[in-house]
């Protein structure tokens, strides 16, 4: 072929915008993403933000209102002056430190649950969608799993083992797995009929290579979106479990158990519930806004699919 023919061919090329550029232009992604980045930064930098150890208490600084100055006893027994930005609870613990450290728990629970549910859901969904003999058995099992209420599974697991981060993450992830499986399966069922998969079959490509090389990469966009929604509901569910007292042990501060402890004197000291609740609401909102933005840019068809 000569050079002229090339230029004719090249003229037909349209410059498509990359997904990344579209993401950065979307306002939902911008807002949700920056709030989340800020929250992650706060959680990581917790010790540098004027906090004290969240388990420290002082009998002399009980039930302080937000902004008041009091004192707190360190582990060595020294008493140091401390300004309680968000007040203190009935043990004299610093709500501000507890809320900031609690962000670590909430965010890691959200992330871990999403990763765990996606990992299991993708494997099961790929299997059910592509290997037809596996479909019936696997999907009936998933239907059964879906019939059990999530909170019940969590309570049962915490009773069986003891309350720890691992237990809580597993307990929240289990009810999410069937939902991811169904999504992946439905995607696989439509992608496996695409001519490019048939082309791979007619080339003699081995089954596992078709599953992981051709089908899986084309399910990624809707899965990222689904992952954010799982993340948001996991953060919320962790707080509910901790509020009910079946989540993490009480010596680890989480937004759920701070609210649970503050609930008793909510009428006199609403700040005990207000601040962790505010952080929880902002976090879940940010994750959901980010998810909506991701959906609009990566997978516009999903709104109808889920």
């Amino acid at each position: 072929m000569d050079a002229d023919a090339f230029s004719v061919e090249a003229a037909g090329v349209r410059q498509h915008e990359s997904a990344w550029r579209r993401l950065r232009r979307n306002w939902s992604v911008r807002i949700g993403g920056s709030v989340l980045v800020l929250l992650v930064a706060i959680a990581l930098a917790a010790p540098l933000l004027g906090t004290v150890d969240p388990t420290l208490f002082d009998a002399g600084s009980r039930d302080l209102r937000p902004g008041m100055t009091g004192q707190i006893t360190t582990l060595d027994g020294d008493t140091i002056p401390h300004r309680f930005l968000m007040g203190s609870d009935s043990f004299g613990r610093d709500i501000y430190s507890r809320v900031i450290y609690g962000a670590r728990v909430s965010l890691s629970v959200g992330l871990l649950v999403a990763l765990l549910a996606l990992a299991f859901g993708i494997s099961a969904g790929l299997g059910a969608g592509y290997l037809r003999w596996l479909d019936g058995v696997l999907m009936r099992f998933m239907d059964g799993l879906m019939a059990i209420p999530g909170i019940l599974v969590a309570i049962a697991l915490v009773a069986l083992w003891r309350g720890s981060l691992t237990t809580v993450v597993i307990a929240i992830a289990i009810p999410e797995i069937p939902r991811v499986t169904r999504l992946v399966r439905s995607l696989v069922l439509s992608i496996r009929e695409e001519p490019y998969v048939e082309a791979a079959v007619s080339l003699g490509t081995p089954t596992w290579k078709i599953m992981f090389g051709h089908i899986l990469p084309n399910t990624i966009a809707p899965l990222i979106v689904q992952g954010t929604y799982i993340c948001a509901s996991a953060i919320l569910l962790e707080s509910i479990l901790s509020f009910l007292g079946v989540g993490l042990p009480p010596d680890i501060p989480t937004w759920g158990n701070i609210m649970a402890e503050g609930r008793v004197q909510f009428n006199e000291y609403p700040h005990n519930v207000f601040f962790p609740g505010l952080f929880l609401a902002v976090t879940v909102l940010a994750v959901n806004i980010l998810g909506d933005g991701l959906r609009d840019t990566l997978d516009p068809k999903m709104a109808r699919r889920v």
Partner: protein
Amino acid sequence: MSAAPLLQVKNLKMHFPVTEGVMVRKVVATVKAVDDVSFSLQPGETLGLVGESGCGKTTTGRCILQLEKPTAGEIIFEGEDLAKLDRKGLVAKRARMQVIFQDPYSSLNPRMKVGSIIGEPMKVHGILPDRKQRQERVAELLSVCGLNPKFMDRYPHEMSGGQRQRVGIARALALNPQFIVCDEAVSALDVSIQAQVINLLEDLRDKFNLSYLFIAHDLSVVRHLCHRVAVMYLGKLVELADSDELFEHPKHPYTKALLEAVPIPDPTIEKGRVHRIMQGEVPSPMNPPSGCVFHPRCPIAVDSCKREVPQSRELRPGHWVACPRV
């Protein structure tokens, strides 16, 4: 043409069961997509397969490629029955026969770059394991198909329909096959690009001595490209003849009707033509008519057509018709 045929299709049948029921699947009917089709293909020959939508052209192609497991019949490719091969033997044979799909948009994986799309067949079959060599081969294939080798770093969505179809052709050529099924390979392209791609297919056929099974519904394209043409109606082969013979002297009433429907690009001739529009609709392949499947719409049908399934007979050397009335 007396040499051993490259491909022989003998009494191919593909019946799809129609099932009902949730827990216990019950077969309530069968769709006879392909019913008793036989033909053969010589090396270097192009056989056109024409017929209206839903007549089983594509299913025939898919059966030959073993993308569909035929209900009955033999597909003998290079002397071996494909249905009897084990997995390994079939993978080896798959390297010898390839496919070009209709839709240049969905036949390329949107997540893969052109370079890895064309390189994949070589990777799968362990040809040119060295990355560098493979890249050179991909560049060579791209320029054979009239594309700039720089395109290998592009994604399919960055290319036009004609360019993508060329990528599909390059992928099909990657393993030096003997035989390519072109499943409506040009019908999704606009007319000027169609001409380019057809010329490319012709050049490649001469260069590599390829055989094509050219599935199409555009009769003028078929006449231009094919040596022989087979006409299908409702899962059956009704007529098979050399291209010129079929277009000049069609025998089967369905072929005649099909050819009459082709407009002539000359208004004075077109004005004087008498169009006999075929009556009725295509019957459902789930419940095909008895005897000759074409009898309800046939202008020359007689009573016996309702009862007797017509056998294919050789009217002239190489001209087979499945109609006893011509």
